[in-house]
Every structure is written in structure tokens, then in C-alpha cells.
């Protein structure tokens, strides 16, 4: 017993030492932070902010050169020093969340589709008071490129919580196909006007090339054939800012319904089921891990569906797949809130320098030098300017060998109208995208944002059910006659009705407030 006591004392002592050590180490970084805002050439105090950007390119180990170039612009123009961080797409959200949760310094960050979640957890700073003073140029260019209603998509409870990236937002559903094969089977692009024209083309492809799979999912794991995107645009469905599809409004009747119970959904999946039964899709389309673009690249696939802005995306796809790929729009696009706030820049709610962050955002959207430095690096070293609107990589270099480039992040940062385009991309395409921004039909509920906090448990359960059934339905592997009733039952069991009711109440309130 006495030995036991001794052991315990020893243990406790170890534990204490351990916790003391832990306390020491955790206090270090905060010290470093507090004296961080020294230095700077101007008489005004230079404020420091952390800015994190996702990049789809190779991320260089040393960002100091491009960081210095960015700071040269920002310190001079707005007196803000930027700690520039670049993360890959796979770990971006994780790095940002970790920083937010641990209280590490992180001022300006973006999201891919999680805007509402950040706002409902109070992780982002309301910008409405600061924008008129520090964000004038940004507001002007947003209005010019999209329309004054852009910020409605990031406004909740009367506060602006984020700035959507300013680019071509309209993503009309398009049919992407191997153009050589289409010609061989005796059709022209003009034969494709709507989704109903596809069946006869698939049939012809199947007959002429028995080894080629005519149609496949654009994304895998979970498999997505672009069908939901098409149905949404075709039937003017507003998803009311949650991607599950539970609680949508079709058209403008203001009635929230479960999209999976509607005839529009049934018609769509029945069509794909028909394609599946006729052998136009792979047998394992719902679980395959091979991207269909790879199938096309290897000559074993013919076409897929997806949403693309502008008219020139097919060029990039052709280059990527090494085949003559073309695309044809098969329906106009429809703007709901989610379509616009999908990529939004936000300011951390615990930031010490909200003014500096907004000043930086202002520059990020309106300053040509800053935008292009962030995207392409140093002129003359990392890229060469061609004409007024274009750039190319230096002679003998490609995106992997140049010392810095984030050229694949053009859809994530700043204003597309100020970005240099890769040489060969027609400038009129950018103008077309901006024109479509203004002309695309807005949902009457554009700007409504669903607050999920009261139905979190139901949302999580519903997510699971959707993951279980949707990939099978949109690839035709499940028979809609049997699967839809089961799917709907499972959704209701998971609390879909509660979500719909909750959404309806919020929408009614929003409509009442909006029509005042």
C-alpha cells in the first residue's frame, strides 16, 4: 500500500511537470504575436494580417519573393503587411479550421461552399460597417461586373459576412463530348439542343464503337453525372443554400418542397435509368473511382455533363485530355444564393485588425497589380505579359517548373475582369461571362440564406441518406420506381419534414421582410 502511495506521488509530480511544460510552450506564440506590428517605412503604423489562399498548382517551399512583391504593393497603398499563406485544395479547409479553432492568427480566408456554416458558428466578422469606408473600389467593381445585388448572397440577418469572388458565375449545363467521335457517327453540334437529343447520339456511338462507354459521371466518389445541375437549371429550382436538396422551391410559388419527391426529379432519374439499362453507362458508374475525363482521354469514353462558364472551357479540357473535346450548352443557368456565394472571402471574427483586412480585400478585388502578382508571381521571372489582357509563362517553363504560379486559382481570387488571361484565351469570352452575370435569371429568393443551427441533428442524418441513395439514382444504377419511395421514406425518417418546415418559416419571414 505504501509503495502504491509513493508511486502515486511520483505520478502526480510527473503530471505536474508535464502540465507546466505544456503551459510554457503554449504561451510562447502569443508573445510573439503581440510585438508583431513593428517595422514599416511610412510614418503610419503598418498593420499585419494573415491571408490564406488555396492553390491548385504546385506550392513552392519558399514564398518570400512573392510575399515581398505583394507587401510592396500593400504597404505602399494601404499600410498593410500581408503574411501570405498558400495551401493545397485538399488541406485548405482543414488548415483554416485548425487556425480558427486554436486561435492562431488568420485574418482573411475563403471557403468552398461552407459559407453558412462559418457564419452560423460566429467565425466571421460582419463587414457592412467597414465596407462603405474602406471598400469603395471593391463595391464599385462588383456592381459593374455582376450587379448591385451580389452582396445579397452573403448577407445574413442584415450583415454582410463575406465577399463572393468576382467572376463569371453563370455555369450553364453543358454537354462535353469527343468531337471526332460525334462527327464519325454522323451528327453535328447543332443536333444537340436539349438533353432529349442525347439518347439518339448515345445509341449511334454505342453501335459504331461497342467498346466505348457513351456517358459517365463528371465527378466520382460520390458519383455525380451532372444531372442535378441540369435539373436545377432546367426547372428553375432554388436549393435555398443547402446542397442536400431537401427543401427547395421550384419556380416562384414560395412553397418549400422535398426535391426528391417531385416529378422533375423522377423524370430526370428515369431518363438516366433508361440510359443505364441501354448500356450507355458503366455498370459500376455509381461506385467507380475513375474520372470519366480519364476515360475520354484514353479513348474509352464519349461524353459527360457539367456546368461551365463562358465558351472556351473546351479548349482547356481538350488540352487536359489530349482529345478534340467540344462542349454544347443544353440549358440556361439559374442563379440561386448558393450559386453565387459558393466561393466567398471572409474575415475572421476574432481578428485584431478588421480595417486592415477590409482594406486588403478592397485591393484584392480592385488592384490589377496585386491580383496578378498573387496569381502569377513576378513579371519577367514567373510570367511574361502579352498585350493588355494576356500573359504567358516564360520561354521553356511550364506551370511545374516556374518558381511561383497559382494560375489555376483564377476562379478563386479577386476579379476576373482584372486578371490576365492565358495567351490564346479570347478576351471576348471574359466579357461574355460578365454579360451573362447580369443577364442570368435570378431566383426570386436570391439572397435568402438558410440558418441550419436549429436543425443540425436532422441535417446530419439527412446528409447520410442522400449519400446513400443519390449516387445510385443519378447514375441509373438504382431503379427509380423502387428506390425513390425508399429514399423519400428514409429522408422523412431522418427528419426531412422538420427541415422543410423550418426552412418554410425562415423563407416566409425573409419574403415578408424583403417585400417591405
Amino acid at each position: 500500500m505504501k509503495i502504491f502511495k509513493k508511486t502515486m506521488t511520483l505520478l502526480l509530480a510527473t503530471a505536474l511537470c508535464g502540465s507546466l511544460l505544456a503551459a510554457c510552450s503554449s504561451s510562447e506564440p502569443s508573445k510573439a504575436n503581440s510585438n508583431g506590428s513593428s517595422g514599416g517605412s511610412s510614418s503610419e503604423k503598418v498593420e499585419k494580417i494573415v491571408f490564406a489562399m488555396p492553390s491548385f498548382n504546385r506550392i513552392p517551399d519558399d514564398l518570400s519573393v512573392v510575399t515581398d512583391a505583394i507587401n510592396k504593393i500593400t504597404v505602399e497603398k494601404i499600410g498593410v503587411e500581408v503574411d501570405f499563406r498558400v495551401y493545397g485544395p485538399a488541406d485548405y479547409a482543414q488548415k483554416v479550421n485548425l487556425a480558427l479553432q486554436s486561435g492562431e492568427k488568420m485574418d482573411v480566408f475563403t471557403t468552398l461552399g461552407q459559407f453558412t456554416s462559418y457564419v452560423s458558428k460566429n467565425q466571421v466578422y460582419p463587414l457592412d460597417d467597414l465596407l462603405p469606408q474602406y471598400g469603395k473600389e471593391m463595391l464599385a467593381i462588383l456592381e459593374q461586373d455582376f450587379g448591385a445585388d451580389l452582396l445579397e448572397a452573403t448577407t445574413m440577418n442584415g450583415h454582410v459576412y463575406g465577399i463572393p469572388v468576382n467572376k463569371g458565375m453563370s455555369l450553364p449545363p453543358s454537354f462535353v463530348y469527343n468531337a471526332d467521335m460525334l462527327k464519325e457517327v454522323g451528327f453535328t453540334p447543332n443536333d444537340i439542343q436539349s438533353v432529349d437529343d442525347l439518347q439518339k447520339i448515345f445509341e449511334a456511338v454505342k453501335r459504331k464503337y461497342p467498346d466505348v462507354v457513351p456517358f459517365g459521371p463528371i465527378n466520382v466518389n460520390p458519383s455525380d453525372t451532372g444531372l442535378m445541375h441540369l435539373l436545377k437549371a432546367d426547372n428553375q429550382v432554388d436549393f435555398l443554400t443547402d446542397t442536400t436538396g431537401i427543401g427547395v422551391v421550384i419556380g416562384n410559388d414560395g412553397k418549400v418542397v422535398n426535391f426528391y419527391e417531385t416529378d422533375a426529379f423522377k423524370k430526370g432519374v428515369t431518363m438516366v435509368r433508361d440510359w443505364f439499362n441501354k448500356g450507355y453507362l458503366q455498370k459500376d458508374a455509381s461506385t467507380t473511382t475513375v474520372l470519366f475525363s480519364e476515360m475520354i482521354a484514353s479513348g474509352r469514353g464519349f461524353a459527360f455533363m457539367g456546368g461551365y462558364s463562358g465558351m472556351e472551357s473546351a479548349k482547356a479540357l481538350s488540352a487536359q485530355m489530349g482529345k478534340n473535346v467540344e462542349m454544347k450548352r443544353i440549358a440556361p443557368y439559374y442563379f440561386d444564393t448558393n450559386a453565387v456565394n459558393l466561393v466567398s472571402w471572409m474575415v475572421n471574427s476574432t481578428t485584431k485588425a478588421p480595417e486592415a483586412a477590409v482594406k486588403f480585400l478592397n485591393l484584392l478585388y480592385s488592384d490589377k497589380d496585386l491580383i496578378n502578382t498573387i496569381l502569377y508571381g513576378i513579371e519577367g521571372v514567373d510570367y511574361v505579359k502579352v498585350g493588355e489582357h494576356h500573359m504567358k509563362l516564360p520561354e521553356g517553363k511550364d506551370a511545374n517548373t516556374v518558381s511561383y504560379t497559382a494560375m489555376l486559382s483564377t476562379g478563386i481570387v479577386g476579379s476576373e475582369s482584372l486578371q490576365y488571361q492565358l495567351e490564346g484565351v479570347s478576351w471576348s469570352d471574359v466579357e461574355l461571362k460578365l454579360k451573362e452575370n447580369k443577364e442570368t435569371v435570378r431566383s426570386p429568393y436570391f439572397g435568402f440564406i438558410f440558418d441550419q443551427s436549429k436543425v443540425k441533428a436532422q441535417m446530419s442524418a439527412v446528409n447520410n441518406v442522400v449519400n446513400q441513395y443519390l449516387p445510385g439514382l443519378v447514375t441509373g444504377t438504382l431503379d427509380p420506381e423502387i428506390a425513390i419511395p425508399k429514399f423519400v421514406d428514409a429522408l422523412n425518417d431522418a427528419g426531412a419534414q422538420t427541415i422543410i418546415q423550418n426552412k418554410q418559416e425562415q423563407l416566409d419571414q425573409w419574403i415578408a421582410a424583403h417585400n417591405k
Partner: protein
Amino acid sequence: MKSNKAKPGALKKTMPLLILAVPGLLYFLINSYFPMFGVFIAFKDINYAKGIFGSDWVGFNNFTFLFQTSDAWIMTRNTLLYNLAFIVFGTICSIFIAIIMYELVSKIYSKLFLSGLVLPSLISMVVLSLLVFAFLNADSGFINHSILRPLGIPEINWYSEPKYWPYLLVIIQLWKTAGYGSIVYFASIAGIDKSIYEAAKIDGAGKLKQIRMITLPLLKPTVIILCLMSIGKIFNSDFGLFYQVPLNAGALYSTTQTIDTYVYRALMQLNDIGMSAAAGLYQSLVGFVLVLVVNAIVKKINSDNALF
């Protein structure tokens, strides 16, 4: 007075052992005991502006999502039954392997085979999922392409037929872990006094009888300790095995959904640490209670074999 003098001596004796235990104890302190402090997060609605301590208490609200649907029954059943199967078949296979290895005459061969059997446990689940995919792929997989098709048996779309997966997952798990698990049993068997076997031989006992009457009874304490420890984790599942290996296929959820995969899928989009903490707490509590119950039962039957 006397007892006071005895103390330093006792400490001196145990000191080397204590020092040996320090790294392990520190590991548990840092990785298991300090984080326990965060248990209260399971009862909070985390709000970043208010901070972790300032956030509102929400009672058991964070737990409701676990029991929201009939999935709660499916995932609990799957988790329990799979783990039971792993414990039962895993123990049997491991002991079987250990005995065979021990009985091998050539010690070089037995070491060699044992190393080979440990190898699968070093393979990552992601790699393993691709190996399995190479077997089960609908068009070009080994089983469909090279076995079923030549035999004229209709091919099976493995990734959309839930009914095969209970067997597949148990086989995969055994292939991966049985070799590694056999090491402990191998060591226990090696520790059995040789003279017992010699005495048995003189009395005319054959190999099988020796195994049945000596090896297995002497392994009992090891088996019980290892089983008790596995039962503590019976509500946890190997995420890689249940998420990566079935390729996250929706059609297979009815037989591959476990508590861990449900929590991951449900919270991936919500990113709510309160709810994930609640799920973790639920799993640990149930595991803890089960260990106490099973230990009590063991104690009742044979108090020498109980853990505590």
C-alpha cells in the same frame, strides 16, 4: 519507525521498473488523460465568438443526431457484430497460427513465416482498399474476370451488393490482423514450462492432446486479458476498413455503416466539434461500461483471470 525505514528500500527496488514505465505513463497522460478535460465540449453549442468556455450549454442536444434515424440501430448493430466477429475469429486464428508456428520444427522457418504473416498489418488501409478493388472490380477484377467468367457463373457487382460484405470485411480484417495478433500468443506459448510437455509426453500424451490439455488452458489468462481490452473498443471501428475498403459506396451502407463512418459522413459538412465530441464520449462510455460488466462476469466465474 520500522516501516519508515522500509519505505526507501522498497522504492529503491521498484525504481528501475518505475523508470521503465515512465514513457508509457507519460504517453497515456498526454494522449489520454489531458484530453479528457475536453469532455465538456460534448455538452456545448460551440460558438467561436464566445470561445469554448463561454459557449452555451445545450445538455444532451449534441447527442440527438446519433439517434435521429433508424440508422442508429443499423450502425450500432454493425459495429457490435463486426467487432464481436473480429474478436472471436481473430482470437481463434491468432492462436491457431501461434500454435502451428511454435510446433514447427525448424525455428528459422517459423520466424520466417511469422514475419510474413505480420506483413499485412503494415499495409495501409488505403493501399489495401486498392488491392481489394483489384479483386472485386466489376469489369476487370480478378474474381469476376478470372474466376467467375471462365466458370460461366454470373458475375457479381460486388460494390452494390451489401449481402457479401459482412463476410468480405471479416476475411479482410483477419488477413490483415491475425498474423500480428498471433505474436502475443506465440510469446505466451514460448513462456510455458517445457517440463510440463515432457511430463505429458512420458505419460503418453500425443501432440493434439498436449495442445488441448496444456497449451490452451495455459493461454486462457492471455486470451481473457486481450479480449477484455478489445471489448473496451467494441464501439469503435477501424475507419479505414469500413470507409476506404468499400470505397464509400452508398449501396453498401446497410452492411458497412458503423458508428465511426456515420459520424464522419454526418459531420463532414457540418464541421461541428460539439457533436463529434458527443459521439466520441458515447463510444467511450459504452466501451467503459462493457469492460466493467465483462470483467465482473469473468470475476464471478474465475476471480484469478479477471483484470481488476
